[in-house]
């Protein structure tokens, strides 16, 4: 009787695989068909430009650079001795180092950097992964985003620290250099950027 049971179970297995044989494939043919990436999908890092003027939103505050766990972002933004404002000279992202964690996007207060849904950036040479400011801006031109800068017009107002008790004096990231302390502090860093989703 064990033999009959075994044969029955073997046939059940064949039935299951045979049943699947007639079904349609669930995979897609990649280069022709493409996966529709979810809105939140974290692909390559891009720099966003102002929708009206076309200038970069980035102010060179170095917050994303400090937030990056794998040191993939290099920013050169020296402070102008007169105006005390930073001038963004270079902004380079090493896509080979990037770990796609999205911390830079969350650290940014100026809607300047975003992880786009693009995921194809293979390069034959390792140097090709170094994307400079121009390329990052170019790629980021048609990336849709919600501009959160306009909501905070008063840049110099220190973050609404009054309501968050203990964290008041620590709100300026002390990972920044001493001169960075004068840059606009982080306004409500915990607030999710994707309110609109």
């Amino acid at each position: 009787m064990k033999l009959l049971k075994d044969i029955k179970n073997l046939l059940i297995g064949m039935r299951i695989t045979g049943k699947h044989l007639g079904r349609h494939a669930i995979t897609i043919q990649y280069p022709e068909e493409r996966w529709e990436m979810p809105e939140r999908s974290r692909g390559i890092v891009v720099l966003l430009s102002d929708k009206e003027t076309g200038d970069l939103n980035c102010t060179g505050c170095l917050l994303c650079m400090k937030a990056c766990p794998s040191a993939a972002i290099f920013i050169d933004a020296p402070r102008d001795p007169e105006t005390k404002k930073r001038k963004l000279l270079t902004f380079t992202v090493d896509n080979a180092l990037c770990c796609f964690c999205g911390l830079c996007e969350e650290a940014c207060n100026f809607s300047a950097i975003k992880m786009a849904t693009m995921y194809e950036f293979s390069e034959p040479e390792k140097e090709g992964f170094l994307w400079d400011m121009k390329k990052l801006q170019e790629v980021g031109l048609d990336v849709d985003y919600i501009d959160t800068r306009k909501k905070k017009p008063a840049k110099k107002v220190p973050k609404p620290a009054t309501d968050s008790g203990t964290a008041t004096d620590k709100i300026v990231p002390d990972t920044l250099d001493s001169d960075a302390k004068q840059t606009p502090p982080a306004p409500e860093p915990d607030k999710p950027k994707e309110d609109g989703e």
Partner: protein
Amino acid sequence: MTYPLPFGELHGVFGWLYELLESTGLPQPWLDVVRYAALGALVFGVISLLALFLVWWERKIAAHIQQRFGPMRHGWHGWYQTVADAVKLLTKEDILVDTRDKFVFFWAPVICFVAAFLAYVTIPFGEGLIVADLNIGILYIMAITTFTIISLLMAGWGSNNKYALLGGIRSAAQLISYEIPMVASILVVVLFVGSMSMVDIVEAQSGWITNWYVFRVPFGPIAFITYIIAATAEANRTPFDIPEAEQELVAGYNIEYSGMKFAMFFLAEFANGFTVSAIAVTLFFGGWHGPFLPSWVWFLLKTLGVVFLLMLFRWTYPRLRVDQLMEFAWKFLVPVTFANLILAAWMKYAGWYW
């Protein structure tokens, strides 16, 4: 006009070719040499095409069972994907291990491929479509396919690799064990036909579908099931593919082979799969017999049906362990096949059959 070899329904084509050959005015011994060489090339071509087709087909079936597409790039549903693969393997660098046994390493794939190739000589592809109707046809096939064991053992030894050696030893143990139930199952049919000629076996099953040996209850179905189990093992296919057991021995005996040599093993494996299916069709499913369609189409359809069964096995079942495999062969399959053989002999003696 008579031809040295009848070609059944393809008579016209082959007759014309033969006349063409005769019209060149070659003297007699050379005429035969050219004719047999052409036949050999034809069989070789058929096997290669069949093997390539089977590789493609297996990939497609595996893919569809797993809800994938499988090869899709080259031609309609990737039909010439395997051709491209074969060309790739042919042109690939032949990586050789320094510590190999040169002679053994070189000849192993050749023997494997030739053994698979020779078996096709006595397979009746259709009415009259047979290269040589030997009167010991089935015995010849059994003898020739056993060469595969030697080649796998040679490959395992010649590679000078421990995994390959384990694979070679496993294959020797397995194939020798499964040869016995396989032959015992075949003998049931031979017993009833009274001849070992493949053509005679097929002719004995002419007429209604009930004349097929697989429907001769009770010994027919039992013989078929035991045969197909043993044949799966003979063709080294899951659940009996322990000689190459990818997850245990990485690739078993062909671990050190690359390029053309690997392609020979690979094609031989699929050619063997086709051979055992063709034997199953010849013995149990009435060979080329069938209505309406030409005989060779029927034969191919039936054979591909059996091959499909083997493929379904492969993509459904896990693999047995080496000792369980032996245990299954010696403690279950051998007694069952012999009991079946005795039963069949007794029924034949008593006349209780139709």
